[in-house]
């Protein structure tokens, strides 16, 4: 990890890695007020949301009835998408909200974006444990394939950080991006197979949807944990690679854009 951060241009690697850790943990503590109850309380909103979706799509639209373990299938999608939404919008704000820090002291600005996304990643890890608990409780057979979730989350995290680089840097200059991003995320929610099974989507359209690293990670996580028969990018394209390339491409380009813009943050924020 240290070598990896060094690659990001972080020179006094260890000290800045320590700073990232310290900020991420502090934010996490503040977010949940340092208590288990704080964390459990924060689960209320996504669980309620999940409950609503579950009732609507099993009793009203009966979309989910064809899918084995639909509740877990749905929960997995909601949790991963929740991470995406939270991480990107928090990271977008990470530079602006620490304006006082940036105006007064130097450290690589990238520290703030990484720390912010790490805070969300900690939450995601906890939430994944909850999904796992639900899965076991509802009788899903958990095999070794479940371990695939780890590289999938790493892929998703790289994608999230890449997108966050762009968002955080642009947000310093354009404050209305916040609203625009909200709308985009709403569209993305429906353009990602979260509530509906891909089988119901016309093939050409589904092929397009599955380019998205977000959709691919959600589908592959479902395959890994719940249902080997769920469809993913490979089933539509015959190979993987496209979403992965997109994730890494956005990460690398985002990194350079961010570093270029970071020099002026102290003056603009």
């Amino acid at each position, binding site marked *: 990890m240290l070598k990896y951060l060094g690659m990001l241009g972080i020179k006094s690697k260890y*000290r800045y890695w320590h*700073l990232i850790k*310290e900020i991420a943990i*502090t934010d996490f503590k*503040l977010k949940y007020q340092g208590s288990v109850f704080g964390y459990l309380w924060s689960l209320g909103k996504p669980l309620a949301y999940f409950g609503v979706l579950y009732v609507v799509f099993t009793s009203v639209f009966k979309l989910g009835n064809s899918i084995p373990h639909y509740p877990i299938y749905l929960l997995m999608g909601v949790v991963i998408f929740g991470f995406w939404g939270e991480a990107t919008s928090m990271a977008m704000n990470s530079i602006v909200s620490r304006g*006082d820090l940036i*105006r007064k*002291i130097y450290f690589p600005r990238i520290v703030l974006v990484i720390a912010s996304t790490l805070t969300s990643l900690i939450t995601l890890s906890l939430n994944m444990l909850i999904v796992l608990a639900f899965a076991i409780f509802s009788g899903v057979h958990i095999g070794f394939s479940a371990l695939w979730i780890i590289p999938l989350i790493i892929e998703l995290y790289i994608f999230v950080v890449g997108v966050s680089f762009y968002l955080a840097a642009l947000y310093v200059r354009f*404050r209305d991006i916040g609203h625009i991003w909200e709308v985009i995320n709403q569209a993305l929610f429906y353009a990602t197979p979260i509530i509906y099974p891909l089988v119901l989507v016309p093939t050409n359209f589904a092929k397009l949807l599955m380019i998205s690293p977000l959709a691919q990670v959600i589908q592959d996580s479902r395959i890994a944990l719940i249902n080997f028969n769920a469809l993913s990018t490979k089933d539509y394209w015959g190979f993987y690679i496209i979403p992965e390339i997109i994730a890494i491409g956005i990460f690398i380009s985002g990194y350079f854009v961010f570093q270029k813009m970071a020099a002026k943050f*102290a003056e603009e924020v």
Partner: protein
Amino acid sequence: MENDIAIKVDNVHKTFKIPHEKSSSLKSAALNVFKRKSSTEFPAAKGISFEVKRGEFFGIIGRNGSGKSTMLKMLAGIYLQDKGGIEINGRLSPFLELGVGFNPELTARDNIYLNGAILGLIRKEIDEKFDEIIEFSELEEFVDQRLKNFSSGMQVRLAFSVAIHAHADILFIDEVLAVGDFNFQKKCLEVFERLKREGKTIVFVTHSMGYVRDFCDRVAVIDKGKIIQIGDTEKAIDVYNKLNLGQEERRIGRENTKNKENGSERIGNGKATITKYKIFDNKGKEAVNLETGEKFKIELEIIFNDNVKNPAIGIMFRKNPSENLFGINSHYEKKIIGEKKKGDKLKFIAKSEMPLASGTYYVTFALSDARSATIYEDLDVLNNVIKINVFSEKEYWGFIKSKVDLSVEEV
């Protein structure tokens, strides 16, 4: 870079563009794509070069807006210069401002770890210094209290304590001494002395010439984005004082003209009028700046509009508009002017030495018809009509300076 140079600044330029219309949204950016953007340029550094040697206590002074803070921010890497080079040779602890990143919701303990991390310390290093930090800040009983319950003085103590324990080779200190109570300030000064002894390189920005004199080995004076003096401390302080004096002179001059125009706070029955009032320094130049102890002259011109039996003239220097400090009075000086007829003119001249310490003072001119010291009639009184600035090379206590002979004898 040679080994004994800690900081090398080479021909650094920095200009801020201040847009006339601040657009901070994508919408306005999109709407204004074809519009020409107008902005004012503000040059904060115009070719600044200097070197700071290892172990040097280097002062940067200058008036507000001179560009000294911008320079410091470029040294700290917060701003990027447009042109020129900055080389830093050593580990930096830029406590430009104390308590950066302090979070009121966290306890003192958590804040020490967070602030320490921001200053470049790792957890283990903070663990080792934790007790020392707390002891220095005198907050032993409050370690696990949230910062929001701390007074501002306590927060500053904590912040300063963390900052000085971040063992850097090069420290930037920007006006931190203005805060905290007397005891704590004393403690800070002791720390500065210790840092100096330890041979740390320190760049110090302040308005307090006392600290500059006490600590700085070399000083740079920055004005309008340029270094106008660098080197000897006394010389730099001299240049800085002159700079301030010039500015003060213009400001007071403007105010005095305004007062003259308004004829502000003028009372009296109008039987006589003070038509001119001027203060001259020892070179005979009309002045608003006088040095403590300097010989000066006041000239008044008066015209009588009616017969006045016993005219008397008074001049008063005040600190506040109501606090009399130093007065000159023709009646008390037994200078009898004698009866004046309508249409008579008079020139009154008073010479003295300035007994007041450095500061700004108001001057009042009064013309009265005095029957005795206490029974008089105001003819024309110009209350606090001039502001003058008294300066002094030496420092001393109080408002008044008198000649002093000191001797110490062994007994």
